[in-house]
């Protein structure tokens, strides 16, 4: 309990906290080992349910009295399903085990829980400092993170409100109700918090605008639409620590004078929907949501609204329209939602991460928050880093850390000794940055200046075998399908961008296409109505600016430097390396393009080859005879011997 909160004793809350602490103590003091299993969507997708079953069965079989504690996601996706085993009797500290399959679960139960052997070869690290096992905080992936929003994710059971309260959750409410709404707004303003939904609009001033609207009914919306491909931080937070988001919503509602809040979650997130719905119910039962919260006479209802999963519905005005029952189409701003939002009422819309930052700020003070991150972007940034890195996953870092530190130190760099080529930040609205930008600090303004965008925090790292033209094509395919179809530039313009990019990746592009790409991109940016259209050309503009060589190679030489564009590559078999009599690649070719040459080596019939690359995978590493080249003419032509053709027929 922090001293600040002690002063604000609130008998109702103290009673709840007392109960939470008693329960936590009972859990801690219960004899026997404790097994913490990550059970968010990512864990479940990697088999956490099966892992849990395996533990339960084996524990029962061996008659071990252990407690299983289901927790959310800890952000280390590469390690899923992860398990932390706390087995004090063994003399070891709590140990973090990655990739615990049911088989491993059985083994750990038998050997570690029953016999006390922690199986060093399977350990990632200890979660406490100790003499026997490396502490996880000695690894950059842990030590360089700064957890504010995700501090409790992966440590508490998201479906048990007492777990959150015992971890100091909801402790800001009692103190908050003793302050005026203006004071709360001032605190948030002083913290410099900027919205994590993409644009980085300052949160305090946003709340103030809504608070100043002299209207009876006001609303709060928590934006958990999260439609960017590859982004999953909001889902993870809702699934791993929903109450921290609710605590932020309550603070926002109190600050602006709203008595109704809506959590807008996409229906494709069934677990998140279930957990946040359950969390609201539990909070209601304890009087933390609903009428007369903690005796403050402040009322707040919180509802969950399931969006039907359109990217554009993450845009605030489209989101509002979709709650109102219309097709989710953005409208012109102003009026901004703080003036006229849902049902025409002043509405604050904030992202999940923004709202989850509120409780830590209220608890530790604005000055504390300002010390994290940079002058103009205080606090932390959460990225879902995917692609060609050793340790992908959710990462929370102080703003201002450079891309280089994030990619090479924290995420372990590029696997397979390959070279870094590009990093795509901000999803479909973001940009693709080259090596020269690796020392760019990660904050709202620096990224925007570089032509990328914080966006909602998707980050894709790409190695040298990447084609930036194809990446742009991928994102344009996405935005073009997700455009609401309302305005001319976005609906038709992005489609033309896509068809031109397709043409280039097929080797059919020309000089004029590059010019059209650039001009049309600028026009779409300047002419579109909403953020989707305004940012959709960013992948094209940045790749044209920073990877012009890629485009030129496609257009002038019909060559794909990343060797990703199928029409521009070819496979052939290096006869020097191919082992006589080896048949490994023959059977795997889906179109029977691999044939036997006159000296019993293999060749590829280019007229049949569909460039799937299966032969390359099948060729044993000791021969490594299959080559991939671009442009395709570089593949030497090997004639198919006459009789094999006959045989073939």
């Amino acid at each position, binding site marked *: 309990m922090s001293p600040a909160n002690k002063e604000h004793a609130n008998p109702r809350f103290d009673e709840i906290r007392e109960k939470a602490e008693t329960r936590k103590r009972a859990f801690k003091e219960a004899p026997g080992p404790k097994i913490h299993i990550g059970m968010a969507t990512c864990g479940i997708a990697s088999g956490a349910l099966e892992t849990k079953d395996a533990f339960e069965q084996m524990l029962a079989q061996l008659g071990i009295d252990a407690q299983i504690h289901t927790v959310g996601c800890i952000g280390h996706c590469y390690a899923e399903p992860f398990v932390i085993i706390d087995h004090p009797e063994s003399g070891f500290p709590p140990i973090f085990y990655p990739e615990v399959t049911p088989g491993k679960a059985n083994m750990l139960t038998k050997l570690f829980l029953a016999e006390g052997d922690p199986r060093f070869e399977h350990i990632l690290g200890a979660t406490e400092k100790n003499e026997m096992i490396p502490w996880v905080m000695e690894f950059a992936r842990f030590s360089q993170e700064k957890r504010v929003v995700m501090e409790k994710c992966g440590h508490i059971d998201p479906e048990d409100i007492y777990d959150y309260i015992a971890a100091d959750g909801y402790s800001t409410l009692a103190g908050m109700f003793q302050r005026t709404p203006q004071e709360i707004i001032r605190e948030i303003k002083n913290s410099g918090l900027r919205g994590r939904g993409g644009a980085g609009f300052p949160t305090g001033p946003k709340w103030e605008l809504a608070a100043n609207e002299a209207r009876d009914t006001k609303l709060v919306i928590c934006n958990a639409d999260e439609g960017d491909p590859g982004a999953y931080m909001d889902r993870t937070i809702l699934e791993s620590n929903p109450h921290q988001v609710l605590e932020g919503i309550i603070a926002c509602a109190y600050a602006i004078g709203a008595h109704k809040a809506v959590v807008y979650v996409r229906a494709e997130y069934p677990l998140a929907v279930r957990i946040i719905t359950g969390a609201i119910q539990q909070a209601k039962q304890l009087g933390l949501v609903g009428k007369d919260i903690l005796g403050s006479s402040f009322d707040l209802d919180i509802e969950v609204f399931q969006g039907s999963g359109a990217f554009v519905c993450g845009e605030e005005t489209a989101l509002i329209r979709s709650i109102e029952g219309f097709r989710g189409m953005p*409208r012109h701003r102003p009026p901004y939602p703080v003036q006229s939002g849902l049902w025409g009422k002043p509405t604050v819309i904030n992202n999940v991460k923004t709202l989850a930052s509120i409780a830590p700020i209220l608890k530790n003070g604005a000055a504390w928050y300002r010390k994290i991150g940079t002058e103009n972007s205080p606090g932390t940034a959460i990225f879902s880093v995917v692609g060609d890195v050793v340790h992908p996953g959710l990462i929370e870092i102080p703003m201002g850390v450079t891309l280089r530190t994030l990619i090479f130190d924290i995420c372990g760099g590029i696997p397979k000794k390959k070279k870094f080529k590009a990093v795509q930040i901000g999803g479909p609205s973001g940009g693709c940055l080259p090596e020269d930008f690796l020392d760019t600090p990660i904050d709202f303004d620096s990224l925007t200046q570089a032509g990328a965008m914080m966006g909602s925090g998707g980050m894709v790292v790409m190695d040298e075998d990447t084609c930036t033209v194809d990446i742009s094509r991928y994102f344009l395919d996405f935005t073009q*399908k997700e455009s609401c179809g309302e305005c001319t530039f976005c609906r038709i313009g992005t*489609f033309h961008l896509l068809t031109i990019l397709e043409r280039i990746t097929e080797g059919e592009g020309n000089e004029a296409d590059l010019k*059209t790409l650039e001009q049309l991109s600028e026009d779409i940016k300047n002419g579109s*109505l909403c953020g989707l259209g305004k940012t959709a050309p960013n992948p094209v503009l940045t790749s044209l600016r920073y990877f012009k060589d890629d485009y030129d190679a496609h257009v002038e030489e019909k060559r794909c430097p990343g060797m990703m564009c199928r029409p521009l590559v070819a496979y052939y078999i290096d006869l020097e390396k191919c082992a006589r009599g080896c048949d490994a690649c023959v059977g795997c070719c889906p179109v029977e393009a691999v044939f036997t040459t006159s000296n019993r080596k293999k060749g590829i019939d280019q007229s049949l080859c569909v460039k799937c690359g299966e032969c390359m995978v099948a060729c044993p590493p000791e021969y490594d005879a299959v080559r991939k080249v671009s442009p395709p003419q570089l593949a030497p032509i090997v004639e198919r011997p006459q009789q094999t053709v006959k045989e073939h027929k």
Partner: protein
Amino acid sequence: MVTLLIDDKKIDVKEGTNLLRACLENDIYIPNLCYIKGMQNPPASCRLCFVEIEGEDHPIASCTVRVRDDMLVHTDTPRVRRLQKTALQLLLSVHDVDCKNCPANRKCGLQDMARFLKTALKSNRFDLFLKKNQVDQSHPFLDYYPNRCVLCGRCVYVCRDQQKLTELTFAQRGFNTVIGFFGNSQTIPPSCDRCRACAEVCPVAALLPKREI
């Protein structure tokens, strides 16, 4: 009343008037498709009515602006014309230009704009993409021609906001967006037969009452 200067022409209008309307009513033509006089919150979706206003960094859709005193407006700047031409070319790149056989010939929004902007009535910069389905005849009283439609949404607006009906909507997404009838002819009120409001506001004859074909 406020006074504003549009392309060096002094204009007096009521404060808060829609800027596009103020221009049009004072004989200053600005290309436009989606605005209808009296709209409370214009959709600003056709992205044609751009102007530059002194003090603003970027061209802005005039139908979203309310006039202020001393506003300085330029309707004919290189940035404005570039956006308008691109928008028109984009619309034409999905438009079945067949004026001779089109009921809208000579009273067509696209012809007007091409004449005004002195551009061709076909898009040379972009490939032409027409939808396979030439006409949607699923409505009992209306026919819809997707390759004429510019998706200005005027029809949806008059149906919903003026007739207080919900017969029309945007359907599909992205490039495939069209005007749809909710695919259910059972629930269509008979009054639809006589109304025609939607067909009347369509600038390109993409919605036509059935028997006029």
